[in-house]
């Protein structure tokens, strides 16, 4: 970020900040501004998602959902936030006062820190780390510290159960999660999120999910581990309403309660951004090949529109994935604790190990077969490109068609018809 800022100052003010006496003040101010902007962005995303999720959930249950505050209810989240802020912030007298008060901030920090490396578009992210993915896995672990703290500090059985479940769940699922993330890392040969995106292409068959069967399976399993780490249904055991009231949040009220929800819904964006970076080609724009982009970069003439288009592509992918997560939540029931554990240790971990091995083997083989052309998106004319396209047709296109056919059959079978009125 420092380089970008330096370049900006040089280009706009024609001065060199490196020679300024108090240059650190400028950097600190810029840091604060970016941090503030990203946190506000996270909060806005979380708020809008909370409204959108309720609308989608309502449609799936044949209801309408909040549609009164603002056009189609879009401002509902402002009303909710206002209510939470105005409400009394109760701290149970029996609780561990200090821990109880700071626990939500751990959760918020763990959530906000992920925005340090998350990409938003071509060259758009707060910083670029060469261990970006590793950093992401590390900081999201802060969330579970907050959850355990709140479970312990509340001095309530429900909260303690919720906190312990969260600890068991998140810590367990980090193992298959990290392992499955290795599959795209092996394919890209880098931990840098932007490098991983650059190793993919703009078209679906250039994405890691459709390049090899291992990537394809790893995509779904990684999706499941992300759900579990974000405490989303079917893995929302830490706050299972029917068993634990609200799990670790039971004793919270007012805006501290709001922070948990902010982090939970904001995490939807984080999860989706990570998944789309690792498997779905991130900000890669179709018809802009790696060579074209490299040419632009070498000549220093990356069109401004490319920044915008790549951001739009990335945001679209993230929003679609967020909808899928919401859709999963309102489809699948919550699993039991023992099932949650056995899914992790008996299925995800061994399968993940196998996938990593197979992916590594494929990389070696493909290097033997195709030599230097073994990495990155392959043009359709080459044998690798043809293989990817064929796999995409089998694993991507056919199921999509089948899926929509089944949906329309479902509607027909119940004697209903397509009707998009009554919003």
């Amino acid at each position: 970020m420092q380089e970008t800022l330096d370049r900006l100052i040089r280009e706009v003010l024609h001065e060199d900040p490196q020679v300024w006496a108090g240059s650190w003040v400028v950097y600190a101010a810029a840091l604060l501004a970016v941090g503030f902007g990203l946190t506000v962005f996270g909060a806005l995303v979380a708020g809008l998602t909370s409204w959108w999720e309720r609308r989608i959930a309502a449609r799936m249950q044949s209801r309408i959902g909040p549609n009164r505050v603002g056009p189609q209810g879009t401002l509902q989240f402002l009303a909710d936030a206002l209510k939470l802020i105005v409400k009394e912030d109760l701290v149970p007298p029996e609780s561990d006062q200090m821990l109880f008060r700071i626990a939500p901030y751990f959760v918020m920090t763990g959530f906000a820190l992920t925005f340090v490396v998350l990409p938003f578009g071509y060259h758009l992210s707060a910083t670029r780390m060469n261990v970006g993915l590793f950093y992401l896995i590390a900081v999201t672990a802060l969330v579970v510290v907050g959850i355990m703290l709140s479970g312990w500090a509340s001095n309530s059985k429900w909260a303690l159960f919720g906190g312990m479940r969260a600890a068991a769940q998140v810590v367990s699922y980090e193992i298959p999660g990290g392992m499955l993330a290795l599959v795209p890392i092996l394919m890209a040969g880098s931990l840098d999120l932007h490098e991983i995106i650059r190793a993919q292409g703009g078209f679906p068959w250039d994405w890691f999910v459709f390049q090899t069967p291992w990537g394809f399976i790893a995509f779904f399993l990684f999706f499941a581990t992300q759900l579990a780490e974000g405490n989303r249904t079917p893995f929302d055991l830490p706050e299972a309403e029917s068993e634990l009231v609200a799990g670790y949040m039971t004793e919270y009220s007012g805006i501290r309660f709001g922070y948990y929800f902010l982090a939970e819904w904001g995490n939807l964006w984080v999860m989706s951004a990570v998944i789309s970076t690792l498997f779905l080609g991130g900000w890669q724009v179709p018809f802009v090949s790696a060579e074209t982009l490299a040419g632009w970069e070498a000549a220093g003439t990356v069109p401004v529109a490319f920044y915008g288009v790549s951001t739009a592509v990335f945001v679209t992918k993230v929003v679609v994935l967020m909808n899928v997560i919401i859709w999963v939540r309102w489809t699948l029931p919550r699993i039991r604790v023992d099932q949650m554990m056995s899914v992790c240790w008996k299925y995800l971990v061994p399968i993940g190990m196998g996938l990593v091995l197979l992916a590594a083997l494929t990389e070696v083989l493909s290097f033997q077969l195709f030599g230097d052309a073994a990495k990155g998106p392959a043009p359709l004319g080459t044998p690798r490109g043809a293989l990817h396209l064929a796999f995409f047709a089998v694993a991507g296109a056919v199921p999509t068609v089948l899926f929509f056919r089944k949906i329309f059959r479902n509607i027909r079978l119940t004697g209903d018809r397509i009707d998009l009125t009554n919003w």
Partner: protein
Amino acid sequence: MPVSQYLANIKDTVQSAWEGMTVTFSYLFRRPMTVQYAGPEKAREKHELVQDTLPSRYRGFLEVDLAICTACNACERACPINVIAIEIEKDPANPKLRVMTRFDIDEGKCMFCGLCVEPCPTGSIQHTREFEGTQRTLSNMVLRFVDPAKPAPPYKVAKGATAFPRAVLGSITRPLVKAWDSPPPPLPIESAEEAMAHAAKKAH
């Protein structure tokens, strides 16, 4: 766990997720069951009162048309929580006749169950569609249908009559509810003991 079972579990998971997801997704294209009730925005657009846009069987504040009330006390007896208070006295002008000196309905207490509406022989007591009764004190929510200065004589039902000329529903309660808006002189609050004594007297 045998390998076949292990594989069957995986197949089950994939298949049930696939089936379930197609079912829920299909609901995005269907018409929701929920019927949107006409909100205040809709009424305002048409320059109507919200009350007038509600369904006709809405159970809002009660209304008594004293012109056809027979003073039979059926509604008062029917109410399970003593919301209705009726007092009947001899007419001082003509001791042979009775008059109603009080017909109060405490809307702050009413649970809108409709039990009082059913036994009424003439359809005098009915639910209106009025519902907005925000008040500074709860006791202000008493609807007083009889002006103590002008006691109301009971209605005499003609032999064999089946229909009764009732005032337009809402035309009596609405002005009473409107009158709540102006800060009124505080009405005497009936204490719990008084209410019980009143009920005990009635029970005899």
